[in-house]
């Protein structure tokens, strides 16, 4: 009984840890994602009986890779019709003892190719690199399983028919392509950290997947400042997880969080990575966002937050990545550094930006500063505006509470 439980755990563990490795290595043989997926699934299937009978191998990943690749070679040899290859077929019989890091890097760049929509990029990355099932990915993005299955199928079809190559882009293209990969991973993280819809604030499976992908990328590209920055950003931001949602399921603002619940080890690790990321001049947007998160994380309490430093970092970030969301966040920092009126002046300007018209956080930021200034009726209007735009239940509950506090 306990032996079987051990095997089940090993298999479940292998799904999480090894899927990306095994798939990427098998893809090198098949040149076709669908076939690679089938072979990997087949290998996992065989693992259940083989490991139950003969014990869990020392290197489950190596075992699975060998079996999956052998199956792929078998299938290709017996195939009646030509498998449309997306790269040169590698049918060497060598037993894989060492993981080839390049394989996963190739797979990341293939999944995150700009010729695919961002939703498809993210879905493929979660499915192929993190080993999430189609159902798990569907649940993460709150769509039906059939919708997600169709999205994945279309993505793989595009890769196959347009011949998106399975390789790490040449150096000349790397900066742009890497930016796409970082954006995709960041999107997975932000979706998980503050879920845009649904009843939970945090979707742990997405955050864990983002962390897994960011760690993988950092391992594969240790000298890249932005890959380091993204990993640092995720670690430091997620360190606050336990303090963000109260026991009653309500949202706790950064200003009110119990900082003793923050993961100090994660903060230390993240801060070290921030320093590393910033040592690469000029600093990129992820390194800067991570630095901002680190300044928050290092403040022992909200009143002790170094707002001047945060504002300075936002000034640099605006030059590197002048997005309206960054402008909004900078305005909020200005509000805490120099007072609510300063924030409101900037926030009023942003109301004219068409890219922010359906962005709930602009309205909720205005509402908060208006509330602090005692401008109650304007604050009420702003909270109502935010509620009209906010789709996450936990955030809505918070906004509703603030609104009711002002109606009396």
């Amino acid at each position, binding site marked *: 009984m306990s032996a079987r439980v051990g095997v089940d755990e090993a298999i479940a563990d292998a799904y999480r840890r090894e899927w990306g490795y095994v798939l990427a290595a098998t893809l090198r043989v098949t040149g076709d994602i669908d076939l690679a997926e089938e072979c990997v699934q087949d290998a996992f299937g065989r693992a259940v009986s083989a490991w139950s009978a003969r014990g869990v191998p020392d290197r489950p990943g190596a075992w699975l890779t060998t079996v999956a690749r052998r199956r792929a070679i078998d299938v290709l040899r017996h195939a009646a019709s030509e498998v449309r290859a997306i790269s040169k077929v590698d049918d060497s019989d060598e037993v894989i003892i060492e993981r080839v890091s390049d394989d996963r890097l190739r797979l990341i760049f293939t999944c995150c190719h700009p*010729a695919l929509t961002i939703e498809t990029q993210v879905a493929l990355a979660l499915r192929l690199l993190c080993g999430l099932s189609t159902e798990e990915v569907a649940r993460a993005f709150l769509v039906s399983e059939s919708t997600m299955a169709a999205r994945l199928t279309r993505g793989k079809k595009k890769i196959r028919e347009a011949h998106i190559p399975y390789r790490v882009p040449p150096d000349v293209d790397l900066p742009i392509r890497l930016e796409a990969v970082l954006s995709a991973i960041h999107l997975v993280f932000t979706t998980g950290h503050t879920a845009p819809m649904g009843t939970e604030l945090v979707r742990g499976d997405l955050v864990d997947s983002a962390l897994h992908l960011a760690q993988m990328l950092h391992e594969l590209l240790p000298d890249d400042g932005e890959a380091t920055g993204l990993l640092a950003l995720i670690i430091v931001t997620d360190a606050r997880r336990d303090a963000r949602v109260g026991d009653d399921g309500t949202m706790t603002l950064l200003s009110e969080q119990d900082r003793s619940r923050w993961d100090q080890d994660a903060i230390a690790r993240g801060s070290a990575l921030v320093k590393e990321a910033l040592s690469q001049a000029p600093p990129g947007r992820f390194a800067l966002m991570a630095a901002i998160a680190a300044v928050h994380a290092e403040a022992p309490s909200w009143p002790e937050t170094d707002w001047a430093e945060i504002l300075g970092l936002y000034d640099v970030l605006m030059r590197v990545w002048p997005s309206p969301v960054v402008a909004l966040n900078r305005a909020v920092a200005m509000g805490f550094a120099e007072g609510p009126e300063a924030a409101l002046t900037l926030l009023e300007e942003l109301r004219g930006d068409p890219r922010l018209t359906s962005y709930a956080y602009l309205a909720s930021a205005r509402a908060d500063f208006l509330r602090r200034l005692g401008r109650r009726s304007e604050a009420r209007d702003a909270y109502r505006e935010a509620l009209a735009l906010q789709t996450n239940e936990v955030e809505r509950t918070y906004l509703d509470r603030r609104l009711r506090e002002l109606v009396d």
Partner: protein
Amino acid sequence: MTEYLVLIYDDKAKMATAGPETFNTLMREHDEFGKSNATSLRGGNALEMTISATSLRRDTNGKLVVTDGPFAETKEILGGYYVIEASDLDAAIAIASQVPAPFGGVEVRPIRVFD
């Protein structure tokens, strides 16, 4: 190696305001493009404007209906095309990005191969 169709789309309004110098430069640039990518090109042509297009459809009775103009009225019109051969999409994009398309852009579509 795969063949791709590179479709050149032009914004009608932008084209309308362009003068003869712009078009002369464009001709020259297409010529240069052709020379620089000679080994990858399998064909290509400029198309006459959509006012000279004729569309054919069948009505519900199967009868041929001939109409004046392009198949669909769009803001951007098909101005020309190239057929290129490339090892993969990245290589195709590298070539297609050199196609002069000052009034819009290009679409890169793989040509289907039937086994």
